[in-house]
């Protein structure tokens, strides 16, 4: 018999929702005969962060010095590192105020109080170690986990999604929240895979799966539409930054739209 695949699930700073999504899958019972869980503190008391694993799932943003050390250890011990969810992939909603200083944020919340651990501004995992694959979403869909693990188990590699939420939304036949209702839906720039979950409930997308990759997230095009609907540059950036604060293209592309007008 082939040896079992060794899996570790590690948490940085987060809401634990990605692990919860994983733990809540009935399919996990089918995975067990083929996999050994080496580290998963949320479910297993006999967990170790020092053991080698085949697949390391990492949830959460990097928000303390201790977490950087943990990351390096995971990278050394793992064959495949998967960043799971918007915190690990994009720095999470805790990065919304990326431009405010740590001191400022600390003061608002803790006042002059001190703790003995070293806090940091939230950052995505990729800023510190190499990431081999990403699961998007806040939280990722169950099928995202199944697809990735299933593909790894057969010795193949999962594809990345490179088309926007709009595509799935159109296929579902939903009315367009952006065009027809005039609400600031982020579907056009957001990575698909959720089956347009929120727009299907009549709720404008807030972009939890992050901007589409391959430099095809047309922040400028969407910003132009938002601007025509009366949103200011600040309002547009605020909304797009909920899940994309670390995106290197965002500000530059939105800026472009507002410079156009002046000419």
């Amino acid at each position, binding site marked *: 018999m082939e040896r079992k695949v060794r899996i570790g699930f590690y948490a940085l700073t987060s809401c634990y929702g990605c692990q919860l999504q994983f733990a809540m899958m009935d399919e*996990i019972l089918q995975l067990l005969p083929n996999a050994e869980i080496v580290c998963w503190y949320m*479910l297993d008391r006999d967990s170790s962060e020092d053991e080698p694993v085949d697949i390391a799932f990492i949830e959460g943003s990097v*928000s303390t010095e201790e977490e950087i050390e943990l990351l390096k250890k995971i990278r050394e011990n793992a064959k495949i590192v998967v960043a799971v969810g918007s915190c690990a992939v994009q720095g999470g909603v*805790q990065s919304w*105020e990326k431009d405010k200083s740590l001191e400022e944020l600390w003061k608002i919340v803790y006042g002059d109080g001190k703790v003995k651990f070293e806090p940091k501004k*939230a950052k995505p995992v990729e800023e510190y170690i190499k990431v081999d694959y990403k699961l998007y979403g806040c939280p990722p869909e169950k099928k995202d986990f199944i697809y990735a693990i299933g593909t790894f188990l057969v010795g193949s590699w999962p594809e990345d999604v490179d088309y926007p939420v709009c595509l799935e939304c159109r296929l579902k036949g939903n009315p367009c929240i952006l065009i027809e209702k005039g609400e600031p839906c982020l579907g056009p720039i957001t990575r698909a895979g959720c089956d347009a*979950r*929120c727009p299907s409930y009549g709720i404008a997308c807030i972009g939890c799966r992050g901007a589409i990759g391959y430099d095809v997230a047309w922040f400028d095009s969407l910003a132009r539409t938002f601007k025509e609907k009366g949103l200011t540059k600040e309002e547009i950036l605020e909304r797009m930054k909920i899940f994309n604060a670390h995106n290197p293209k965002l500000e530059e592309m939105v800026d472009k739209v507002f410079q156009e007008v002046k000419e």
Partner: protein
Amino acid sequence: MKNLYLPITVDHIARVEGKGGVEIIVGDDGVKEVKLNIIEGPRFFEAITVGKKLDEALAVYPRICSFCSAAHKLTAVEAAEKAIGFEVREEIQALREVLYIGDMIESHALHLYLLVLPDYMGYSNPLKMLDKYKKEINIALDLKNLGSWMMDELGARAIHQENVVMGGFGKLPDKTTLEKMKKRLQEALPLAEYTFELFSKLEQYEEVEGPIIHMAVRPRGDVYGIYGDAISVSDGFEFPSEDYKKHMVERVVEHSFAKHSFYNGEKPFMTGAISRVVNHADKLYGRAKELYESHKDLLRPTNPFANNLAQALELVYFMERGIDLIDEALAKWPIRPRDEVAVKDGFGVSTTEAPRGILVYALEVKDGRIAYADIITPTAFNLAMMEVHVRMMAEKHYNDDPERLKYLTEMVVRAYDPCISCSVHVVRL
């Protein structure tokens, strides 16, 4: 010469939500110090949402916690609605409570079966119980599937429910789905009763027996439940929710990214399922009422382990309550999902009973944006009391094998069902 003692530590408590540890320092005269180290990084939720548009802030708040994201969403939305002076229709309120009940069912089932039960059955991991305790694991899965399905239908998904908005819901399930929900709740009742039976047989360690101050939200309409506008204390005192800062005083402690809370500034207190039962058992009805009457001695106010059984009791109660609330909503069918809200300036406090206890949201709205936010979660309220109980356990067992001591203190922590991510979302001074 003085003896040297190494601190006994659990760096990372397993089978709880979030990252925390226990540190017990033992000296010649016994236990010197006990600390619950909360090492989950800070996320500054209040700081990042101040100045932001109301609807966007409301989308971000549930991200404080996954185990009770519905609780966060519903409480935040109610605080915002109170701030702008809006009240939802009765049938919308009923359906919001059904969504909240979905969260209760999932959270309690997960906590009891996957986090607590392995300790009692001698396993490190619930998945390893599958061979010998297949029935229990299947019940756990059935209950969590029911809870998460309810949240899917009413909240758009089981974690971070975007479907709840000011004024109501984005979209409502159809009548057939609600009828099916009622049926599934009815079918799950025997599973909840089985859970209660099972947990009524588990040990409640007498090492931590002693008086506890309990706080719980006084439920509206005098029916045991989730929403309320006042906080009751087990010493007989009661105060309006708006006064929470006066009676639940927070302090920064250096070993934790989460602050500690004290009743009237000095006494640790407990909140959670057992606190709800202690303070408001007279408002239970149906099968849960009968079970309470016959198991009063086990659902006692003096032991944190009673919280496990109280959660099991609530599984029974909230299923029956959910059925009644669905009936209430169905009586008004068809229901318009959402009313227009006019966003005005104002200040609102919402207090609800999350699965783990009192959750407070205080929001000030100005020009359509959040001007002030204060959020306090049940785990943050509980931390000081938890340290007291961990200490009591340590004082009885510090001479034992350190592994045994670690195991027992972890069980104390788990009985509180702490949600550590929640507690470090953190609050303004």
